[in-house]
């Protein structure tokens, strides 16, 4: 059972099954003088996120501070029964989901990045409303794409607290290491960033931290109960 597409990553950073996105030219409001967005096309942003490291951070920051994007999300949430607080939270969660989908190769490039971002926000708001038991007036047509399979979404929700508890106990260094590992940094990069002697040492440490995380999960009876349900 697959929760995300099995895409082989090509040498150019794109996944095998991705259609290279058509050039969408400049992003909307690219002439905003306080950000100098004119160099950041959709392709550059996608490539930056998938490259990881400082390029990913810069690309995500550009999207986060893109003029008009936040207002579009806020307007949608307010029009569909949410508050400004909800809108702010949904906006941030949408960037997290966008980042994850980009890294996992789930973005097919059929729409502009800002359009995709807003679609994620709409999907996320529908999900939240459904979880609150208040999903009555929003039809599936109100969101444009399924961002994540219901199964994956359910797992993330149900296991979240258990994951947080275990991660809270593995120590700061292990958390940093596992985060870099999860973001697909090579062991050489991890060794350099975490100041390990070499890639082999980094790999052993990553394995040790991973086993510690696994042990904490398996020692939690709630985790076993959830897994068997």
């Amino acid at each position, binding site marked *: 059972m697959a929760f995300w*597409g*099995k*895409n*082989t*990553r090509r040498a150019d950073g794109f996944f095998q099954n991705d259609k290279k996105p058509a050039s969408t030219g400049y992003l909307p409001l690219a002439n905003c003088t*306080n950000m100098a967005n004119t160099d950041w096309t959709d392709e550059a942003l996608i490539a930056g996120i998938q490259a990881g490291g400082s390029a990913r*951070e810069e690309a*995500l*920051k550009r999207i*986060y*501070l893109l003029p008009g994007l936040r207002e579009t999300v806020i307007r949608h949430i307010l029009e569909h029964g949410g*508050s400004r*607080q*909800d809108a*702010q*939270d949904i906006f*941030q969660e949408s*960037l*997290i989901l966008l*980042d*994850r989908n980009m890294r*996992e*190769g789930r973005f097919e490039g059929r729409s502009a990045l800002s359009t995709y971002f807003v679609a994620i926000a709409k999907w996320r708001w529908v999900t*939240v409303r459904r*979880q*609150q*038991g208040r999903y009555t007036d929003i039809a599936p047509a109100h969101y444009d794409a399924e961002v994540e399979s219901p199964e*994956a979404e359910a*797992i*993330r*929700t*149900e*296991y*979240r*607290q*258990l*994951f*947080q*508890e*275990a*991660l*809270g106990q593995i120590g700061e260094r292990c*958390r940093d290491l*596992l*985060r870099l*590992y*999860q973001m*697909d940094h090579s062991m050489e990069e991890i060794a350099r960033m975490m100041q390990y002697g070499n890639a082999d040492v980094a790999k052993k440490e990553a*394995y040790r931290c*991973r086993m510690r*995380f*696994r042990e904490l*999960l398996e020692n*939690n*009876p*709630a985790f076993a*109960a*959830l*897994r068997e*349900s």
Partner: protein
Amino acid sequence: MSRFDQIERYLQGRMPAEELRAFESELATDTELAALVRQHRLERYGMELLVERDLLAKMQAWDRETELFQQVQPRRAVLRPMTWVLRAAAVLALAAFGYWLLRDTSATSTEPPSSIVRTKPEIKPRVPTVRKRQQPIPQREDVPAEAPLEDVAQQTPEEPAPAPIEEMADGEDLDYAALADEFFRERDFVAPTSSKSGATGYDQALKNFQDGKYNEVISKTIPDGGANAVEQKELLALAQYKSRRYADAATTFRGIMAAGQQPYAQRAEWGLVLALLQELPTRKGEFYRALTDILRDPEHMFYSKAKRLEERL
């Protein structure tokens, strides 16, 4: 290559096509391998939370940068609409004051003088006098009984005690309860679904909470020190909050903070801020201490909300 590395490469989508086909056919028949892959996948979901948390902290930093950027921008754009509103308000205030002045003088000049009516003075009941030893009261021999005694003139009138001067606290016109309600969101604390941890007591309490039966949650939830005691306490605190028992909620949140278990402790810190906000302007000192504790930690999961609350105050 170890099985661990192989499964990781499979889940990361880094397998060459041929190896991928072989692995998937093995996966279809080997239940142990399938269980192991599922375990890896769950762990990767968990590790994704680290990436999520890191990105959230970055977004908060970007928000702070943006705020600093706005602070150094010229404030004319902000002040300009305010200036003419203030001018209009000042003109209206002057006009109202002028109208009051004119109305007051014209009323007294146009009213006809009231006629003087002489009536027999009403004899008021005698009020006890305060005798000063330094000044003996002169005796009067031919004072008529019905005439008011001169002692009355020597009375020290009892002045009412001056009303205490109430200091207008800053922001006293703020509706703190409405502000707290604006910032309170259930999903910051309670998972929307049941814990599925096998703790039927907790699941029933959660159902009662979601159905709005807060009194039932309060009366029936007794944290038992078991595996999900902190979860139970959190639910209890939220039920107390929703029942407007803010002092009780604050106490329960403090108990969760003392246990130190994350992420409950951080959620409890935010819950404490909101409970104390509901009780403002009393407990002001406690409220600001609780808020400051969150603002001291930029990586706190409620840092951005605390920042926004601070701005609103």
